[in-house]
Structure formats: C-alpha cells, structure tokens
C-alpha cells in the first residue's frame, strides 16, 4: 500500500527537512504542503479501507480497519488545517519577537514528528509499538509547550512531562501483562502483541491477568486522554504552548489516547465476559464530565477554559464507549469527530484573538466582533457549537449519547445533563463577553487564517443535520469493531 507508506513517511521527511530548514522564509508554506499531502494519502487510504475492508501491510506490522482509518483521516485533516492556521500565527509570533529562528525550527520539525507519531500509533498492528508511539508523541510536544520559555510555560511543560511519563509507564505495565496473557495462548515471539492475533483469541486470555492489565492500561492512557483525576497536566499544557499545538493536542492527541483505551476494552470484554471494563470507563467518564464542567466556571484564561472543555468532552466520549453497544459507540465516534473539528476551530479563533489582545486573560479580550468580525463570529459560533447547541454536530452526538444513556443508565443521563448545563453557563457568557463588548484590540501584521475556522465549523454544521450515507456506514462499521 503506497498510500500507507506515504502517510507515515511524508511527515517524517518533513520533520527531517525542518530540522535544518525550519526557520527559512517559506517554512510555514512547506509545513502546510507536507501536511496537505499527508492528508491526501490519508483520504486515499480511507477510500481503500472502506472499499476493500481491513488492510494488513509489511508482514502484519501495520493494520488499518474502519475504526483506525476514521481517526487517521481526522488526524491528517486537522493536521493540515492546523498547519494552514499556523502559517500566519507563527509569522505574527515572530513579528512580535516571541519566537526566534531556533525555536521556529524546533516548532516546525516537532509539528511534523508529532503528526507522524500519532499516525504511527493509529496504524500499527503491534500494541507495544502503540505504546512507543504514544510516548514519543509526549516527547515531541513537551518542548513545544515550553517554547516561549516563560516561567509558566516551563512549569506547564515539566508537569506535562512528569505526569504523562508516570501515566504512560502504567500503560507499559498493562501492555506487559497483556503480553503475558497472550503469550500463553499464542506462544512467544513477536506475534503475541499483534492486534489482529490478540483479537482472534481474546476469549481465551486469562481473565485475572487481563483485569489487572486493563486497569493499568486505562489509568495509563487515561492520563494522556485527560481523564479526571489524572487530568492535571492538560489545562496547563493547553494554556502555555503555541496555539496551533494546543489545537492539535486537544483535537488529535486526546483522540489517539482514547483509541488505545477503546482497543484495550475490546480485549478486556472478550476475556472477561463481564461489563467490568465498560463500568470502569463509565465511572471515569462521568467523574471527568462533572469535575471538568464545574472547573470551567472558575477559569480566567481563555485557553485553560477550553482545555477544561476538552477534558469534559473526553469524559463524554469515554462514557459513551463505556456504555458500549452499537448506538452509544456510534455516538462516541461521531462525538470524537465533531469535537476535534469544533475544538480546533475554536483554538484557531482563540489564537488570533489572544494575539490581538496580547493576553490570554478573558477579561482583557473584548469586542472581537468589532475589530475583526470573522474571528469574532468564528469564536462565537464555535462556542455555541461546542456547547452542544443545535444544529451543530456536537448536538447530534450528545443527543444520541443522552438518549442511549437514558435507557441504559438513566441516573447517569441526569448527571450528564446537569454537568452540560453547568459548562454551558461557564463558557457561554465568557465567550459572549469576548466577542461583543467594547473593543480593545490591536490589528495584526499578518492577516489571520479564517478559512480553516469556517471549514471546520461548516463541517460540524453539516454533520449536525445531515450524515452522508457513506459516513454513517463507516461509523457503524467502526462501532461494530469496538462496540
């Protein structure tokens, strides 16, 4: 499959190129070009998987099915649009003297490497390599979080590094235990960690070992997905890094962590024959939604505010996967898609807004709609969309989740509704104040990238009232794989 090779090698080649030329005048355009071609490869791969079914490549080292290719396509697409946004954003940062040539080189190289590691995590067939790719994804972003070298950013990056490092070590222990259970059935050597092999024998795995393994995997990858009480690193890392990195952290990396959890759940369900894995995920998910919703009420920094909103949505998706079954999993997958699109659109708008205001403090950003209507309306519409207002896609996903929860876990549905209402109050009036209100902003040297914002919002709007048949089949197929 040449498109799979391209998908993984293009961003890698980009990373190597930018390690040398990342500060050159045309680097932002080259960054977008690499990301654009990666997205193209992802589309071709998705078409092939949808038409021909799951694909194996390179002696079973890589495996792509409907579930992983959904996230591959999403990752490559948002990676591309974010690179378009990053173009004027980073130029403005350079113009403002916040970023020097070395930092710019690091930024462009790590951006591509980060995308490469996420795509590797999604396409590998080996759950050990999945772990390695997740760890590398942390390492590539940690220096970007502290790119500005301010005390707050160094602090945030250290926290991110240590907490995610410890968290992901738990996931490694879970992987080791899974290997122990698998080795007894499949024999030693390299094949016992291959997903395609594991899935075939999942009902023969030793339940007692798999139970402990799943708990470690959930805690480990849950740290990366920002599940409460392991979410502590997330708002800081979101607030302090350059905004394009915030957009991809929030829109993409969290999804990849959830992907690992969803895969682990399939094995746990198969081995245990009990709903233990689902119940654990529902518990974590619910706690996450509630805590994050109340935390949005106390935020004064706009990027932290939306960081907590991401935590909340990860909780919702974890809860949906925890319920399991066709409808809830469908809702979870749809939610992943629309959350990525909406949240990255919001961060694009927020990025330009904070550049205009010269601060991230919500109270000091006022009247966006007067100085730059497009950014203002983008933020307003994005805010409405992420809060689950119809007709946007988040509404469709949340509605589907709540109706399923209503029949499966009625009490939990009630708790979710309350939490959603709380975060509604927490976010809406803050966004409204930033968008309307008396203007206090200065113009930017490089025109903001408006197109990605509205492309994303347009797509979520479309998904809100019309799900194309091919996409519905795609979601159903993916839901069947992990439901």
């Amino acid at each position, binding site marked *: 499959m040449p498109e799979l090779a391209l998908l993984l090698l293009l961003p890698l080649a980009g990373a190597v190129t930018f390690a040398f030329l990342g500060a050159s005048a045309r680097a932002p355009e080259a960054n977008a070009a690499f990301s654009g071609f990666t997205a193209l490869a992802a589309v071709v791969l998705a078409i092939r998987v949808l038409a021909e079914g799951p694909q194996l490549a390179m002696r079973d080292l890589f495996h792509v099915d409907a579930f992983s290719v959904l996230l591959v396509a999403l990752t490559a697409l948002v990676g591309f649009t974010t690179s378009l946004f990053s173009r004027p954003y980073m130029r403005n940062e350079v113009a403002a003297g916040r970023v020097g040539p070395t930092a710019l080189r690091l930024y462009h190289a790590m951006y591509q490497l980060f995308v490469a590691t996420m795509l590797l995590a999604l396409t590998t067939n080996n759950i*050990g390599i999945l772990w390695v790719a997740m760890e590398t994804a942390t*390492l590539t972003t940690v220096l970007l979080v502290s790119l500005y070298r301010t005390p707050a950013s160094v602090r945030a990056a250290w926290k991110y590094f240590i907490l995610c490092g410890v968290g992901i070590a738990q996931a490694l222990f879970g992987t080791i235990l899974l290997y122990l259970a698998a080795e007894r059935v499949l024999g030693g050597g390299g094949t016992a960690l291959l997903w395609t092999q594991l899935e075939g024998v999942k009902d023969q795995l030793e339940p007692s070992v798999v139970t402990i393994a799943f708990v470690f995997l959930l805690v480990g990858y849950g740290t990366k997905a920002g599940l409460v009480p392991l979410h502590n690193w997330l708002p800081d890392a979101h607030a302090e890094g350059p905004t394009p990195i915030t957009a991809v952290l929030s829109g993409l990396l969290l999804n990849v962590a959830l992907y690992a959890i969803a895969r682990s759940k399939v094995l746990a369900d198969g081995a245990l024959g009990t709903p233990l894995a689902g119940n654990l995920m529902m518990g974590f998910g619910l706690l996450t939604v509630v805590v994050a919703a109340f935390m949005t009420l106390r935020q004064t920094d706009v990027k932290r505010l939306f960081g907590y909103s991401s935590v909340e949505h990860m909780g919702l998706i974890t809860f949906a996967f925890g319920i399991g079954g066709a409808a809830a999993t469908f809702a979870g997958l749809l939610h992943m898609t629309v959350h990525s699109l909406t949240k990255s659109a919001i961060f694009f708008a927020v990025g330009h807004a904070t550049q205009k205001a010269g601060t991230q403090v919500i109270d000091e950003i006022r009247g966006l709609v007067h100085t730059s209507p497009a950014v203002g309306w983008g933020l307003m519409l994005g805010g409405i969309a992420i809060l689950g207002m119809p007709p946007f896609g988040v509404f469709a996903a949340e509605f589907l989740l709540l109706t399923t929860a209503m029949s499966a876990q009625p009490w939990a549905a009630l708790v979710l509704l309350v939490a959603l209402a709380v975060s509604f109050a927490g976010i809406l009036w803050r966004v409204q104040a930033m968008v309307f209100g008396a203007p206090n902003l200065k113009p930017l040297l490089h025109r903001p990238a408006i197109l990605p914002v509205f492309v994303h919002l347009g797509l979520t709007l479309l998904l809100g009232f019309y799900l194309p048949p091919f996409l519905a089949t795609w979601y159903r197929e993916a839901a069947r794989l992990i439901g």
Partner: protein
Amino acid sequence: MSFANQLVDLIAALLLLTSFAMLAQRRLTALVDLLALQGVLLTAATLVAAWVTGHAHLYLSALLSLVLKVVVLPTLLRRLVRRLDLQWDREALVNTPTTMLVGIVLVIVAFNLALPISALSGTILRGALGIALASVLLAFLMMITRRKAVSQVIGFLAMENGLFFAATSVTYGMPMIVELGIALDVLVAAFVFGIFFFRIRETFDSLDTRHLETRPAGEGEDV
C-alpha cells in the same frame, strides 16, 4: 532450587535494596551510581535468563541494557550534574523514616498484586515480579518525595528499570522491536530532560521544583 534460580533471586533482592537505597540517598552523584548499579543488576538478570533458556534475543536485550542503562544514561546524568554544578548538592529529605515505612507497605502491596500473575508465568524469574513491581512503586514514591528536578528524573528512570525487570521476569522480555522502541524513547526522554534542566535553571535560577508547583495569582486553580 537450581543455581540459576538462586542467582536470579539474589539479583532481585539486590534490586529491591538499591530501590530502598535510592529513597534515602541525599547526594545526587550517589543516586546516579545507584541507577547505574540497577542497570548492572538488570543486565545480569537478563544474562542469567538468556543462559538458562538459550534465547538469542535475550543476549541482545542484555547488551541493550548494558549499553543504555549502565553506560549511556549514567554518563549523561553525571555530565549534566557536573555541568549544572550539582555534585556537592545535598537534598533535604523530609522524614526519611516515614518514607521508608510507606515503602515497606508498597512492597507488601506489590507482592500481593504480583502473586496471582506470577503463578501463571512459566519463566525462572517469575518469583521476581513482586520485586519488579515493588521497585516501580518505590521509584514512584521517590518521584513524589523529591524536590529536585534531577532526582525526579532519576526516579523516572528507576521506574523504567523496574518495568523492564517486570517484562523480563514474567515473559523473558517484550518482542525485540518493542524493546528497541522503548529503549529509543528512554534515550530521547533523557535528552529532553537534559534540555529541560537548563530551561528550568535559566527561568527560575534553581532546579528546585517547588518553583514549578506554585502558580502566580490570577491564573486559576486546579482540583
């Protein structure tokens, strides 16, 4: 009990000892030495396993830990400690006896958790899983109790050592490709840590992570 079994048990016991020694050690240079000693013990354990089973990949794995954990990482850390002029630093530890007691409780927890798992494993090192898990937890405890960034990193690397020992003890190590990937990650992590030390120092004029915990007013609060 065969000679190899006794040898492995001895190595495992020594590993547990080094983990406790790290909890109590106040000098950074001595901490690095202990970390290198753990590397030596891991290499030895892997070699014994390789000798007993005759698996070629275990010899390779032993070589990997020898190079990475005995030579490269400790050298890197020693150089960093010198460059940052921390050789003579003594860290003030809060309440070492309590930390030790908590450590003992962790060891008991680890053995209880490991018992049902190691019963399923067929390796000669299976009894050592409890110790491996205990050293992971002890390293974790060390990361919590320390204030200096460098000691936290040493705790992180010790935790990775424990995990590596766990993998060797229950399954004779992970598949080679995964082991190589993990080794690469650890190496990259060590470099990133190194860059970080300088950034922290440059920003805060100290490597004390207490600066990393307090947040200026008005930035919001965490749970």
